Every structure is written in C-alpha cells, then in structure tokens.
C-alpha cells in the first residue's frame, strides 16, 4: 500500500519590537546573560504585565498580510506548567480567543528546473496568537544555567491546518512565511538566532483516503534543513511501522539533528494539563475598524505578488525575480535604483549578478548584509546609464563595479579617475585600425575572400591595443570602411 503524509506546522516567530511583550525591558539578540531583565521579566512577587502596543499591531499586521480574520476582541490566558526557563511558571498566551483566525500562506513548489516557476498553492492557517517567550537554558553535565534575557519577548505562534503533504511543501511553506514576515518588518525570522522556531505534526494515511492518521508532534526542528529532514525521517518511521503492522502512538517526539532521528519525549497520557484560564492581570484587546485600516496602510506587497508584477510589468525572467522578490531588502534596493533610471533588466542583472557576488565574497560569515554595502542603488542606476550613453562598454562596467563596491565611489568618479571613458576620437582610432590591418595580412585576406568572422580577430586586436576603451561598434564600422 502507498501512504501519504499529512503535515501541520506550528511556527513561533519572535517579533521585532524594541521591548518585551508585557514589560518595557529591552530585548536584542546576543546580549550578556541576564542584562535584559526587570522585576516583571523575572516574575518577582507583586509584578504585573502591561501589553506592548507595537507587538499587538505587528500581530494584527501579520494576520492582515496572511488574510486572517481579525476578531473584534481577543483576550489573554495563563498556560500553567513548571519549567526553570519560565519565571512565573505560567506563560501568558491566548487560548480560545486569539488575535487572528484562519488565513493562508501562498507557497511555491519546486519547478521542473531552476529556470521554470513551480506550482503555487495556498496553505490554510488555523490561527495566529501572541504570547511571551521563555528564557534560555544551557545544559552542562550536572547542572543547567538559566539566562532570562529572552524571557518575555513577544512571540507569535502561527498554526497551520494539516494542509501540507511532503517535507518539501513544509520547507516551501516556511520559506514563504519567512519572506512575508521579513518583508513586513515583523520579524527577522533568523532560525539560527531562534527568531523562528518550528514544531511539526506529522501523520500518514493510505493514499486516496481522507481520514487523518494518528498524529505525532515533532519538536526541536530548529533549522530550515532540520524541518525538512526531521519530517522526512518521521514519515519514513511511520510508514515502516504501518508496513510492519505496528501501531503508531500519539506522542511528542524530539528531532535529533546530529544523529538524524526522532526519539519519544512523552506519550499522550503524559500530556500536560495546562489549566488555561483568563489572565486576571490583563484586560482584553478590542480591535476597531479604524485601527485595522490604519495598520493595513503600512503593509508591504507580498513577495509572490511582487514577483508576478516584476515578470509582467518589467518583463524580468523568473530566475531573476526569484532572487530579487523573496528578499524584501534586495527588492527595495532594486526599486530604488529603478526610480533613478528605468532600465529594469539591466539594473536587475547588476544586482542579482555583480552585487550579490560581491556581497557573498565580502562576508566573513555568509554574505555581507545589504545594509552594510557601500554601493548605493543610484550608483547602480548611474552605471547602467553610462553604458547606455556609450561612455563605457559593459565590459568596462564589469570592472568598474568591484571598484564601486570596495570604495563606495560613484561609477562616474571611478571612470574619470581611471580614464576609462570610451574613446570616440575616430581619427586616432582610424590610425590604430589601419596599423592592425597592416600588421595582420592573414585575417585581412580571409575577410576579403568573404570569410565574415575573420573581422572579429581584427576587432579583438584593436580592443586589445586600446585596452578596451574603444567603442566596439565604432571599431567595427571603421574596419569595414578601411577594408572596403
């Protein structure tokens, strides 16, 4: 029998606020341990939570972006369980009235090749709710250390329906989700920094049936590849069990990325009794139509919508748009350049080839971030403009770009300083061409005998002699005139 996997994802995303969810202690990644706390973060006796307006707004925006329904009111509940990373031993979360209901995420499956767009599909969401993050534990042989810096940071949980059917789809879903949230400035979604974390619910069923099989929750899928590999492993494990007539137990399993397998954490019987109840310290949130409209104004274009627009309006090829559009910063860079000089193809080419290559070479740990790049969008536009004016050849432009990247100088300045401007003095050029004709009797004879490509050898010689500064079109004209 053939089996089909059904997957649902629970994705936690850290919001990019300045301060925590229920107190105004700041948060940023990488601070010294226990330097970003206050009495509220530490759950000191007597402390009380106060909501962060920005976090609520970002969550509503995430919901609007993903087509969720925003109910008129949402409320806060306490999820009670004991763990040393959680200062109060309850987490303030949302149980039955989340900020966002429903919604969907558009995903793109792998196409037949890199150059061809894959199939698109909308994956259904159950809800998005807002909660507070916990601290960080570091485990040693006999003890664990606790750092509460991260505790209390706003976290949204995006819960999908069981509407994903392969590890690749899960991967595509996470990628698409991340691109949307980054584009909207809601989160950096850096999995390495724990800004995006993922748990998966995986079950399998005989292909062609509609009833869901027994669900197993996989935790600790903390890298993008972990999500793909962990789910793939779990599907394989469950399929094997089915084939051997072994029951699949409803349980929570942990993905061990180093060893490449999942292990059981707890069974259904050991599931927590969280004793959710409305948090008496917090008042509900009412979302007015006005507030919604105001928040909707700040929403960005979704990456896939942008991609379709670029392909339609700018006639850009799929391969280029699939580099530009998922990266909100890169797309903004492109549009800024375009605002200066409207040559989308040429500009996009410089950005996706030259700029990305330089960035990747310059970074010590992965690529250099775009915001640290010295080349400004208007410089890229200017560079294309110089080619179009005939001031430099595209060949020269390729040499100018690395110089722009390393010095931050504008292309005109570099061309001037290095004397790279194309020669248009036909008198001098004619003399050079004549000299080449005189010194190369063989290709001259071949050309005259009707062998057209032989002229390229002569052109090459001229270009070499002028060190590339001559305009190849003009050289071609002069040579033909002299050889006529």
């Amino acid at each position, binding site marked *: 029998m053939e089996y089909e996997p059904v997957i649902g994802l629970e994705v936690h995303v850290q919001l990019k606020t*300045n301060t925590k969810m229920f*107190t105004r202690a700041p948060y940023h990644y990488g601070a010294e341990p*226990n330097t970003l706390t*206050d009495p509220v973060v530490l759950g000191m006796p007597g402390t009380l939570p106060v909501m962060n*307006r920005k976090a609520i707004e970002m969550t509503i925006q995430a919901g609007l972006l993903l087509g969720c329904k925003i109910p008129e009111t949402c409320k806060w509940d306490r999820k009670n369980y004991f*763990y040393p990373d*959680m200062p109060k031993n309850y987490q303030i979360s949302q149980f039955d009235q989340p900020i966002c209901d429903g919604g969907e995420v558009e995903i793109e499956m792998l196409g037949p090749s890199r150059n061809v767009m894959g199939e698109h599909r909308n994956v259904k969401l159950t809800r998005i709710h807002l909660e507070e993050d916990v601290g960080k*534990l570091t*485990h040693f042989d006999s003890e*664990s250390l606790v750092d509460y810096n991260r505790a209390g940071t706003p976290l949204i949980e995006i819960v999908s329906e069981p509407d994903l059917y392969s590890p690749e789809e899960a991967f595509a879903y996470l990628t698409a989700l991340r691109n949307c949230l980054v584009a909207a400035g809601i989160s950096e979604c850096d999995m390495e920094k724990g800004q995006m974390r993922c748990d998966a619910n995986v079950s399998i069923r005989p292909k062609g049936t509609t009833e869901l099989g027994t669900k197993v929750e996989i935790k600790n899928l903390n890298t993008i590849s972990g999500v793909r590999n962990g789910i793939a492993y779990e599907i394989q494990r469950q399929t094997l069990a089915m084939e051997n007539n072994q029951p699949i137990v409803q349980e929570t399993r942990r993905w061990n990325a180093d060893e490449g397998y999942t292990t059981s954490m707890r069974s259904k019987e050991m599931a927590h009794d969280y004793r959710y109840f409305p948090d008496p310290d917090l008042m509900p949130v009412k979302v007015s139509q006005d507030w919604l409209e105001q928040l909707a104004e700040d929403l960005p274009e979704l990456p896939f919508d942008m991609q379709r627009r670029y392909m339609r309006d700018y006639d850009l090829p799929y391969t280029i748009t699939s580099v530009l559009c998922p990266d909100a910063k890169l797309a903004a860079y492109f549009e800024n350049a375009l605002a200066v000089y409207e040559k989308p193809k040429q500009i996009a080419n410089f950005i996706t080839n030259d700029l990305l290559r330089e960035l990747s070479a310059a970074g010590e740990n992965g690529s250099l971030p775009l915001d640290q790049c010295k080349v400004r969008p208007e410089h890229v536009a200017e560079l294309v403009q110089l080619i179009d004016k005939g001031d430099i050849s595209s060949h020269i432009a390729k040499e100018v770009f690395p110089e722009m990247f390393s010095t931050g100088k504008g292309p005109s300045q570099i061309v001037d300083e290095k004397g790279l401007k194309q020669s248009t003095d036909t008198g001098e050029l004619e003399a050079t061409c004549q000299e080449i004709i005189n010194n190369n009797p063989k290709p001259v004879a071949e050309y005259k005998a009707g062998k057209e490509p032989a002229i390229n050898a002569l052109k090459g010689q001229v270009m070499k002699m002028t060190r590339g500064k001559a305009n190849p079109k003009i050289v071609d004209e002069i040579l033909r005139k002299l050889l006529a």
Partner: protein
Amino acid sequence: MSDASNIDIDYVANLARLQLTPEEKQRFAGQLGDILEHFEKLKSIDVSNEEPMAHPFPVFNVLGADEASPTLSPEQALVNAPKQRDQQLVVPKVVDDA
C-alpha cells in the same frame, strides 16, 4: 460535579508540584471533599444566559508604548538566587520536557 468529592489529591499535588506527606494527603482529601460538596450549591442556579466575569470592571486596550525602560543589573537580578555562576542562575540539570 457529582463525583467531585472524590478529589484525586495525588494528581492535583503533582500538577501543583507540591510534596505532601501521607497525613496531609489524607486530611486534604477529606477537607477538600467537604468543601467541594459545599460547592454543589452552584449547580442550583441556571447560568446559561450569563457571561463569565473575568474582571470586576470591563476595560479594554491597556497598552504601553514600545519604548525601553531601565533594566536590572545582573547582580540585582540574581540577588535572591539560591545558586548562581557566570551571571546565570544555576539549577540541577533539567530533563527537557517543555
């Protein structure tokens, strides 16, 4: 609520992470049984049309601006800690089940 007076004291004490002596368990089970029996009174009333009341007064949208306020120093943060090292709280190794 009819079976309420048979409170599973072990289950509840485990939820609340409370170590109770056998005597305490026995005493609590009896006392809480009596109390829960008294609570049966609540059943006498029809509440199908009532909204649950979570707060004495309904107020909405008590929101703070996303502007950072002062933090505690690590020393202040850990001043009451039973055990600490390297600016962090020390606990015996935790079995990860969160």
